[in-house]
């Protein structure tokens, strides 16, 4: 039996539901030394800003139980070099690219979107709104419905009408469904759930924070239940919106649970550091999991964790056999 792995994210058709996660695969060149990256559904590139950025001082990372904290600070080459070097390379390599953008003012997001209008190989934008808003005392855009919506509105206005826009949400909010509604109303075509969870590691010897930036973003299996919860809540509230699920995916089985929670596609982030081959492996394992359950189309397992789906569904029943 051949399993259909193609997914349709609100008009964006990808041959495979397994993607990379922003900031965990750079712009593809390094990963291409490990496995053939054209087998990915798409590359989601590291969030790019207008100007070149040095990022934060080291230490920038701390391993924590089943996870890690990072405070990279969006080090990057700036949009011009990103387009001319990275996007050109990805386009030549033939990998569909979802370009992630980040800014500290609403107008920066708009400007980034304009620059990317005619860039090669970009099939969608992912808008990283987990950045401090310099126009509002550095409050993170993603944490408040209005600023989050303003960014998405600006991107939507500046983007070609047929270029899908994914808003990437932060789990560090009281009600993620409220933010999801706000960005979808503002014009987001899809959602990426979730970004890292703010955390802190303290060196037990020195009793000082391990990271130079004091706090950092927690990622990896440690946050998987939070990611699943966010996806499940948002899916229940927004039955039709395409969702890219991300947060602690390590295996085909993990990917399957994300789909069941309501994701239409899955990104592998931190696990690339543990197993550089992980995106390729997760996609193979997912196909095997589906086959073993007698499911011929990956889209059939989406939303199965929601109560309205009867337990007699093929995918669930064959589990018990």
């Amino acid at each position, binding site marked *: 039996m051949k399993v259909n792995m193609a997914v349709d994210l609100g008009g964006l058709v990808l041959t495979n539901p397994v993607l990379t996660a922003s*900031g*965990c*695969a*750079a712009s593809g*060149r*390094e*990963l*291409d*030394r*490990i*496995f*053939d*990256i*054209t*087998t990915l559904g798409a590359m989601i590139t*590291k969030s790019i800003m207008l100007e070149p950025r*040095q*990022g934060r001082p*080291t*230490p*920038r*990372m701390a*391993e924590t*139980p*089943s*996870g*890690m904290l*990072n405070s*990279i600070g969006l*080090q990057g080459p700036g949009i011009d070099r990103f387009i001319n070097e990275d996007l050109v390379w990805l386009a030549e*390599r*033939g990998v569909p690219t979802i370009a992630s953008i980040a800014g500290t003012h609403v107008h920066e997001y708009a400007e980034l979107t304009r620059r990317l209008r005619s860039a090669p190989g970009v099939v969608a934008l992912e808008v990283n709104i987990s950045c401090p808003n310099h126009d509002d005392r550095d409050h993170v855009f993603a944490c408040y419905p209005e600023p989050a919506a303003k960014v998405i509105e600006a991107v939507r206005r500046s983007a070609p009408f047929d270029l899908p826009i994914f808003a990437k949400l932060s789990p560090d909010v009281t009600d993620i469904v409220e933010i999801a509604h706000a960005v979808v109303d503002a014009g987001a075509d899809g959602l990426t759930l979730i970004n890292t969870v703010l955390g802190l590691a303290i060196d037990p010897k020195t009793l000082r924070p391990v990271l130079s930036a004091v706090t950092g973003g927690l990622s*990896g*299996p440690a946050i998987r239940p939070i990611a699943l919860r966010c996806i499940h809540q948002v899916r229940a509230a927004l039955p039709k919106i395409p969702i890219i699920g991300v947060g602690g995916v390590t295996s085909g089985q993990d990917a399957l649970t994300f789909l069941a929670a309501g994701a239409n596609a899955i990104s592998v982030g*931190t*696990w*690339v*550091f*543990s*197993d*550089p*081959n992980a995106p390729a492996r997760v996609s193979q394992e997912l196909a095997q999991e589906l086959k073993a359950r007698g499911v011929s189309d990956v889209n059939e397992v989406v939303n199965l964790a929601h109560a309205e789906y009867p337990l007699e569904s093929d995918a669930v029943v064959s589990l018990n056999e």
Partner: protein
Amino acid sequence: MNTPSASLGKNRIHQIDAEVLATRRAGAYTVLTLSANQIAAAAKPGQFVTCSVGEVGTGLILRRAFSIHDVTSTGGQGGTIDVVVAPHGGGTQWLAQRRRYDKVNVSGPLGQGFKVPREPVSCVLVGGGYGSAPLFFLAKVLAARGCRIEMILGGATADKVFGILESRRAANSTTLVTEDGTLGVTGRVTDVLVDSINRFDAKAIYACGPMGMLAAISELAVDAEVACQVAVEEAMACGFGVCMTCVLPIKGDDEVPRLVRACVAGPVFACEQVAWHL
């Protein structure tokens, strides 16, 4: 069908479930010999590998980096690599407890190795603690080019000086240094470096060890006008260039320091490239 990858081939990073063929204690360290044919065949001195640590489902999710200490490449299937493990936290302790026939997931070869001189010149190789590990693979390659090799091996205490016996074969001469005086000269490797440079008319210095030691060696090398390469150690999450955790300030041709990834641009740098004071 997969299209062949643009950059697989000679740049390929291999990831192998390597069998532990042998283990041995060397002072405070454990040396593991791993069956890793493809890595052995491609490795250059100064490059490193990363190893998964812990059992399946471990909470230790990140790979640990180790210099390639030695390589045997048979040309056939039997190539091996040696790594020197200093038990430190949970991950290195787990690795140091591996036994023969155990499997360790190894990825490599990673990073840029040492540049070796074209002429058969005299070289001083300086190692601090387990930083001495990569110098032995380097010494093999230098010796094959007819270079004269002086090793300076240091450590806080005698058991932390790595490669005491091996250096007899690997180097033409060796100076041992300990901070507590339990072995060799009392003091630091920098206390004996200038003397070695002068005595052997050294044209190249290679160093690996703690960052403070490398900074001090660089200063002496610049004063002595001897070319010096250092292998640095920065905390790494991925080891192959995708995460940006391992950066350090490196001066470009314009002398302006920029944060550069140690895992792909290094770990070996010319000493004058590193902006030590930033």
